[in-house]
């Protein structure tokens, strides 16, 4: 890529908007996933009995089971949220940036 083109794209406000919006979004989602996972694994390391509590009186199911399943589901939902916004909003911005340099 020539320096001229690099400077042109770099100074394009749409490019700057894309970079800041997307990196903020990607890092926020990553941190949410990391916090969920590390909270889970730290509870297991320090206080495994927390997850042994029953979900209801008279039930044998412990709260650890629905929590575990929810973490799996949350991973899927978080990827869905990212793909939805990136394939719409972010790809539109990229398309406009590409049009701008033609």
């Amino acid at each position, binding site marked *: 890529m020539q320096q001229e083109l690099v400077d042109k794209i770099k100074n394009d406000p749409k490019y700057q908007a*894309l970079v800041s919006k997307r990196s903020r979004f*990607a890092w926020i989602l990553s941190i949410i996933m990391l916090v969920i996972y590390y909270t889970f*694994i*730290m509870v*297991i*390391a320090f206080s*495994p009995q927390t997850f042994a509590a029953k979900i209801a009186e008279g039930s*044998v199911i412990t709260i650890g089971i629905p929590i575990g399943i929810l973490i*799996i589901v949350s991973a899927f939902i978080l990827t869905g949220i990212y793909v939805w916004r990136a394939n719409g909003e972010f790809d539109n911005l990229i398309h406009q940036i590409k049009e701008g340099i033609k």
Partner: protein
Amino acid sequence: MSRNFLIWGAFATLFAATGVFATGGALDGAIEKQSLNVAAIVMFLLFVAATLAITYWAAQRTKTAKDFYTAGGGITGLQNGLAISGDYMSAASFLGISALVYRSGYDGLIYSIGFLVGWPIILFLIAERLRNLGKYTFADVASYRLAQTPIRTLSAFGALATVILYLIAQMVGAGQLIQLLFGLPYWMAVVIVGVLMILYVTFGGMLATTWVQIIKAVLLLSGATFIAFGVLYSFDFSFEKMFTEAINTTRDAKGMMSGEVIMAPGGLVNNWFDAISLGIALMFGTAGLPHILMRFFTVADAKEARKSVFFATGFIGYFYILTFIIGFGAIVLISKNPEYLTAEGGLLGGNNMAAIHLSHAIGGNIFLGFISAVAFATILAVVSGLTLAGASAVSHDLYANVFKRGEVNEAQEMKISKIATVCLGVIAIGLGIAFEKQNIAFMVGLAFAIAASANFPVLFLSMYWSKLTTRGAFIGGGLGLLTAIVLVVIGPTVWVAILGNEEPIFGSKYPALISVTTAFVGIWFFSIIDNSKRAQIDRAAFEAQDIRCQTGIGAEGAVTH
């Protein structure tokens, strides 16, 4: 010409396989192998015939290096998502995780979750950048603005080390499993897997490998769904009933947990170091596996790359939920049935057979045959993906870009990649046979540790940190690699379990926290003190790289056929 070779090779393998199956059971079925399973063999032969037909079809479409390495870049997001989940749901994770649930209940879920949560992170931080920058291998990305020779050499070495460790683990697992399921001698099973994998990869390249993965993923997901459905059916679709009966199943065989403890975390992770370190190994290790990273170059653009991870996360997550149900179902349905037990009360063929025996308990001989064939197919698909990644590291990174400094024609590079595939296949067969009786439990852990400590940090910082230099990446990545290997060797899995010492020098099975930190700190330190001429080139090139990374302007497109 090569097409004729493929046809003859395919016929010869099918013929040999049939012959081997016909005699295998009679030879020494007496030891601890199952008797010859006809349904399993018929279904496996069908799978082999179908995949060889696909290889023939793919061979006609594999003409250029781009076809060979990335299937021309024309795989869709859904197809790639299935293929990624096919790569990730190995026989080890299907049989291993359901066995872990069978043995200790809840702990199996902890493991699955660790394996899954790396995927969202890969999507958010790596997938589209990788697609926008890379061509055939992850070393393309890592060395994009750095000096080719040192960084490609380091990345190719990291890729080969990961691939070979993983391959050995798969081959030994394949041999033992097939010996049990099909009544075949160990060495023959290893040879069949090796030969088929060489055929798929050399002739069909990435296109055939992708379709083998897709078919296998669909078969495995359907089979596991059927077992889980059968389990739930036998408890009238009540989880309460299933868990209650599992708790009430008392088992006294060695290592088995019973009673209420199976419903809560047991001893898998019991200190903060292991908890963090295991998490890092699984997360960053997944993001550093060469055969997984390579899959992102098979799609047309960043949009499809994102979709692939979305679908893959869904399939893998669903699969892990199934393994949890399968493990609990097995506790109730097979751990008291003498048909599946040894005299001591353990499972026939070992703990990893829980899902296999359960398939028999639920669907009889025919379904057992189906699941056995799926397990075999799973191994074939995973080793093919691994071999292709290893061969690309040899031909594209080491030969074309290091040895020939990029001055190479495509035909020559393709030839080298095919030779490399055959060599890797032969090495895998040889090591698979050599390690038959060895304890290989440490190998997958070591592969993940190397991927997390050597491949991932260099790849990640090359995309994110403008001040990274060649020297920093090379020294830091090398330190990460060394630390991972040394800590595994002096840890419990090698120092105690294999070398027979009383106490490990390094107390944890999970070195990633230390080795990954070493790599990142090493890369940072040796980059900031680097004032060489090369360092200026490396830093100056970041801006242009970052724009391509962010927008895909100038990225490799797809080829249509």
